[in-house]
């Protein structure tokens, strides 16, 4: 499709501004001024609307296609969330009113909701206090790592390492590095969970923390998780729960009760805030008592007169990871979701999420290799190793799914499974949708045997064929230039 720049006409006026109602005055001196106008496209409103409407139609999205992207929890985003987030009294509220105590009375509504969400997430995670500031899961991890660092520094503990299983999300070791620690990777044992023996060997006094995703990215719940937390605590090693997969145990298990000290949540995953094509998300972090002094500030408190205000007095606070209260709009959506579902609704989420994933795994076990023969939780990992013998990769199968109107699962992750396909259907998908998916996956397995070429050429009869990613990396064409090289 053409770019907006290629539809632009030199002298067409765009959006009409009101008339200037004050006198013009002298512009800043030349050394401060840009002589040329910024080269923005000039298109009429209808053309603009058509351009982005037509462009949007090139996306598969949750509202139009099954989207079983593993570890991303692509559940349905109820429309009421958008309606609430669109309330003008929420969307137009300036955070600057929170910069002065005198402004608090004008922002009581938003503070009340943030306070309510802090408490709900505390209850769901079993922690003592939650910060809503982190702007995404990865930033939640960094926030957690910085608190871990502050905790050990306060206690004069000499710590250097953070343990992460080899199935962990890439953000885990990256967050560890940002906080100035080194990560130690622990291999996965034959049961699909972190090798306990090796873990024990590596668990020295120099370890600051251990990060666990539970269930892990294989979709397997680590049955030794409590023991791992206990062993860690014996050496004053803090335990971090990566909440990317909380959907599997939502309303059933509280991570802090398993022995975790820090828990981050991805509100855009478990709590149904839409993913926005890659954000905005939100990554609140809950901590147990001993880490409360290190939380970012401010957080919201309620006084005796039921008025909400801000607490920012801990000398040990790590500071700020966002200018105000995090991605308020995303937080509001998650709160709405939690309140609509309530206790029973949330419990049901994990049950049906686990049911759906196991149903897919069982239905496909004769067609694809299963790296671990045990029950999965909210997602399952299957492998295209069998198909690889015929030259068919997970990528080929993914592209075939696109051709058949399904967004592919996460592929080639976790890294320890060859030709991995990580499938997370979520609870909001019906049996009928799952059955269709299963049929298409079976057909792909059949084609791999009988007509591998069909898969290698997929997506066929589609708007696009496969893109040359090597060329993209080589050419580094990262912005548009017109004929005048502008």
């Amino acid at each position, binding site marked *: 499709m053409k770019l907006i720049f290629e539809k632009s006409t030199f002298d067409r006026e765009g959006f009409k501004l009101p008339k200037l109602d004050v006198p013009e005055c002298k512009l800043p001196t030349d050394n401060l001024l840009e002589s040329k106008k910024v080269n923005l496209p000039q298109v009429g409103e209808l053309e603009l609307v058509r351009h982005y409407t037509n462009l949007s139609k090139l996306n598969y999205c949750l509202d139009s296609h099954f989207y079983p992207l593993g570890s991303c929890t692509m559940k349905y985003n109820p429309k009421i969330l958008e309606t609430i987030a669109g309330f003008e009294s929420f969307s137009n*509220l300036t955070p600057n009113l929170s910069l002065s105590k005198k402004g608090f009375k004008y922002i*009581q509504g938003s503070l009340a909701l943030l306070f309510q969400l802090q408490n709900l997430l505390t209850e769901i995670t079993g922690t003592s206090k939650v910060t809503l500031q982190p702007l995404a899961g990865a930033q939640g991890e960094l926030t957690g790592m910085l608190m871990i660092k502050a905790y050990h520094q306060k206690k004069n503990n000499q710590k250097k390492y953070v343990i992460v299983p080899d199935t962990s999300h890439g953000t885990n070791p990256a967050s560890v590095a940002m906080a100035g620690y080194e990560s130690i990777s622990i291999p996965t044992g034959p049961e699909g969970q972190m090798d306990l023996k090796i873990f024990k060997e590596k668990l020295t006094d120099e370890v600051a923390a251990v990060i666990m995703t539970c269930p892990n990215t294989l979709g397997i719940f680590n049955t030794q998780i409590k023991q791992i937390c206990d062993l860690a605590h014996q050496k004053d090693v803090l335990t971090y729960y990566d909440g990317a997969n909380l959907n599997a145990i939502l309303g059933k298990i509280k991570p802090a009760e398993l022995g975790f000290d820090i828990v981050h949540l991805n509100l*855009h995953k478990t709590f149904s805030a839409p993913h926005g094509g*890659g954000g905005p998300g939100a990554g609140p972090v809950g901590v147990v008592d001993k880490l409360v002094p290190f939380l970012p500030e401010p957080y919201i408190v309620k006084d005796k007169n039921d008025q909400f205000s801000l607490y920012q007095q801990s000398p040990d606070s790590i500071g700020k990871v966002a200018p105000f209260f995090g991605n308020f709009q995303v937080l509001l959506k998650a709160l709405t979701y939690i309140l609509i579902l309530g206790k029973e609704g949330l419990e049901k989420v994990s049950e049906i999420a686990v049911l759906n994933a196991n149903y897919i795994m069982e239905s496909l076990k004769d067609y694809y290799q299963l790296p671990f023969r045990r029950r999965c939780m909210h997602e399952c990992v299957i492998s295209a190793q069998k198909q690889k013998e015929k030259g068919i990769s997970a990528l080929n199968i993914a592209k075939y799914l696109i051709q058949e109107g399904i967004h592919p699962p*996460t592929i080639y992750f976790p890294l320890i499974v060859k030709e991995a396909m990580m499938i997370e259907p979520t609870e909001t998908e019906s049996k009928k949708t799952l059955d269709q998916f299963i049929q298409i996956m079976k057909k792909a397995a059949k084609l791999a045997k009988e007509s591998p070429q069909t898969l290698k050429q997929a997506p066929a009869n589609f708007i696009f064929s496969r893109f040359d990613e090597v060329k993209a990396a080589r050419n580094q064409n990262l912005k548009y230039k017109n004929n005048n090289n502008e």
Partner: protein
Amino acid sequence: MNYIPHTEDEIKEMLGTIGASSLDDLFSEIDKSFFSKSFNLSEGRSEFELFEYLKKIAAKNDTSLINLSGGGFYDHYIPAVVDKLTSRSEFYTPYTPYQPECSQGTLQSIYEYQTLICRLTGMDVTNASVYDGGTALAEGIIMASRITKRKKVIIDSALNPLYQKIIRTYLNPDFYQIMIVDSSGYGLNRKKFLELLDSDTAAVVFQNPNFFGKIDDYSDLVKAAHEKQILTILSTYPIALGLLKSPGSFGFDIVTGEAQCLGNQLNFGGPLLGFIAIRKKYVRQLPGRIVGATEDKVGRRGFVLTLQTREQHIRRNKATSNICTNQNLSAIKALIYLASLGKDGFRKLSKMNYFKAQFARKALAQIDKIKIDLNYPIFNEFVIEIENLGQLYPKILEKDFIPGIPLAQFYPEMKNKLLICITEKISKQDILKFKSILESITYLI
């Protein structure tokens, strides 16, 4: 409501396929003692009840005040097309475009967005977005330190104080040395900067317009820094770039900022939209997603995520940052906003902010008990000094104006000083009304 479509019969049938006796049986591998005894949560509600409940709570916010506060978080008019288009499911319900064949809508939009951020800043390359202006700057500094293999960072105190806090949180004090140069008055302490630049310095950091609204010419300092192989970083305000000299033409190496002002509502401070734009030679050090153009098998142009070996999902602990999901939808809003205003419209808008702020500054300077330094150039923000600001501030709020940001909380020496912002949304009438309110309440003290 739980949005689960399964009937009881379907659940039974599925359990049969799995070979599980009940839904509880699905969790049978997990030790019983792991399960929580109680979840103290309320019962679910109907959509209607919730709507009414949240409407009541929303009414406890007051968005009717005329907003004269900025400080990095600006109240600009947003054309209706921005929200109408970005509230299409196709934009807001997919995820990161890992599969380019079925994600061209997001990918092309981000390529267009990257193009516009480069044109605004006068820089070569940018990424698909970062969280906000503060973390963008923190990432920029970390990047500069990695490139120069140096640890000292010199920062102008007229940098947004909230960003300063974020930077202090992000930058590991065991590793980085942060030096703050106190601005003389509202402006730059050039002499001090020149003194401090040395061979240990990774980067110098400025903001233009600075936190007090002042605009400046940075060419001399950029040049001096470059002579010592120090990278220069500027945090900037995109609306001002419709009028002011682009950071690229000043010679900056890394340009960051907050682009909420481009088509994103204030939303009580989030989602925001950070950007980071750089010289092309540093592209492999850039954090975050980058979209690049390529072709499909039959030569049709399309777009993919590229240079991914910088990123956490490939490089893990060696990645340029841990960032992954961030502000995609906010970036698309910024794109549509800019495309809607167009070349002429954006210049006009930027000038309108400038003219109105100059008018307001002069008008308020006429008030007896208010002190305003008119001697430095500003874009659309400026500082005023009112005696007894603490007492007067709530009184002005009661007159339906958010009078700006009191500066003493960030700069203790700036007692009684207020940072005021005038955008295109503030009419001449609003300004005159604000003036008369200030006149009447300062008259009483």
